[in-house]
């Protein structure tokens, strides 16, 4: 029984993992308006689009991060990004809603033009 279970679980694991890889690489969260981001969305993945402003390079205890403000027609929110500085003025951000010093921010995973 052990061997059968091992074989079956291995096969299903790889099939499932393969599907998961495809989904994670190709699926994106739905784009939402920044005003819709509130405490209930904490720790959720979101996609937002808007104008970039107030770009700053922030030195933390352990490295550098890029902080900027993203504004769409409804509201604005600060985005923190662990990557290189950029010059685009209109971007699409995919990231997780986090809390920092009392405010909601988005920790960006991907930034697109």
């Amino acid at each position, binding site marked *: *029984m*052990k*061997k059968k*279970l*091992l074989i079956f*679980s*291995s096969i*299903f*694991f790889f099939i*499932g*993992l393969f*599907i*998961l*890889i495809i*989904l*994670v690489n190709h*699926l*994106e*969260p739905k784009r939402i308006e920044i005003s819709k981001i509130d*405490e*209930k969305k*904490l*720790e*959720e*993945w979101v996609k937002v689009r808007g104008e970039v402003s107030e770009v700053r390079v922030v030195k933390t*205890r*352990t490295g550098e991060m890029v902080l900027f403000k993203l504004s769409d027609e409804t509201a604005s929110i600060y985005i923190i990004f*662990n990557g290189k500085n950029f010059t685009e003025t209109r971007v699409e951000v*995919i990231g997780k809603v986090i*809390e920092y*010093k*009392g405010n909601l921010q988005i920790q960006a*995973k991907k930034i697109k033009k």
Partner: protein
Amino acid sequence: MLQILFAIFFGILAGIFTGLVPGVHINLVALILFILSPYFSNFTSPLVLACFIVAMAITHCFIDFIPSIFLGAPKEETALSVLPGHRMLLKGKGYEAIKLTTIGCLLGTLVACPFAIFFIFTASFFYYYLYKGIPFILLGISLLLIIKENKKIEAFFIFLFSGVFGFLTLNFTLIKQALFPLFTSLFGSPLLLISFLQNVSIPKQKIRKVKIQKKDILTGIWSSILSSSLVSFLPGVGAAQAASISASLKKMSSKVFLFVLGMISTMTMLFSFVALYAIQKPRTGVAVFVGKFLPGLSEKEIILFMVVAVLTSFVCFFIASFFARIFSKNITKIKYKWICLGILIFLLILTPIVSGLASLLVFFVGTCLGIMASMFGIRKIHLMGSLILPVIIWYLS
């Protein structure tokens, strides 16, 4: 003062609820409290609400082991208690298993307090070196654990693939509360499914006094302090990784390991409040909300939290024993096979509710991996790669 006592009382009640019910995390209750806080601010202060959260969090640390050990339904912090707890359950020692984690939790709180004061002054200093060093520490202990196995290749394979799986799950944008399906599927459901398929039955549970050797207590204390202090101040690592670190430091029997898990559970929770004060960073979901209620933490509040924690711990010591007694007496009334199936179905229904429909895929894949790990006959701890590898990657990037 009276308000604080009320807060502790309700905090303990809330902690019992979140601890006993799988899938309900204290962060959820803290979030609800935060959303409702404007209503509370009319007749109470943020400090009182923070005390509620501290009491709830500490209670949760104690009670969470009960569903993990008796029902095989763990949360992130207690995932590693499932197997040793289950082993003891099969020997009729389920009560003893809980007693061990409970004693660990209580001792953890008591020992953590003096060390907390030490860390308040030193945390800031060590932070940078810790931050740079932790990915290597984690990698080192994971490899050490693999090398100590008889079946090294299988262990490495499981570690690696759990890392890939964990990485994918944490980046899966369709699900929320990713840790719930991740840990339930890796540690909980495989055990339940296998127990069901193998028609495992539990013997009558004996309620008897727990005996631990003094040297085991000392081992437990120093390994818990070491691992808890390493993880409590850094982002992305918590009680689960601390348990892995402790396990790699010294070989322990199931009993001692459960004791250590209990200690780590409360220690990491307490240290996370210290971290909030010492380096202004909340390292647990609970600390996040305490930080929101009390943006200007001072030593006075930390000391109050420690007092709350110690009081709560003493109360929870008896509450946990009480529940363990109830579970021990009643778990043999229904055939264990059906308990396992029932819990499994419950988790299958709960997972999509908590994390979204897509989390069922995660649940499926994780369960398969967990079953593979069981069938290989290696320690479950390698499945921690699901958290450790993504964290290492995150720190190194």
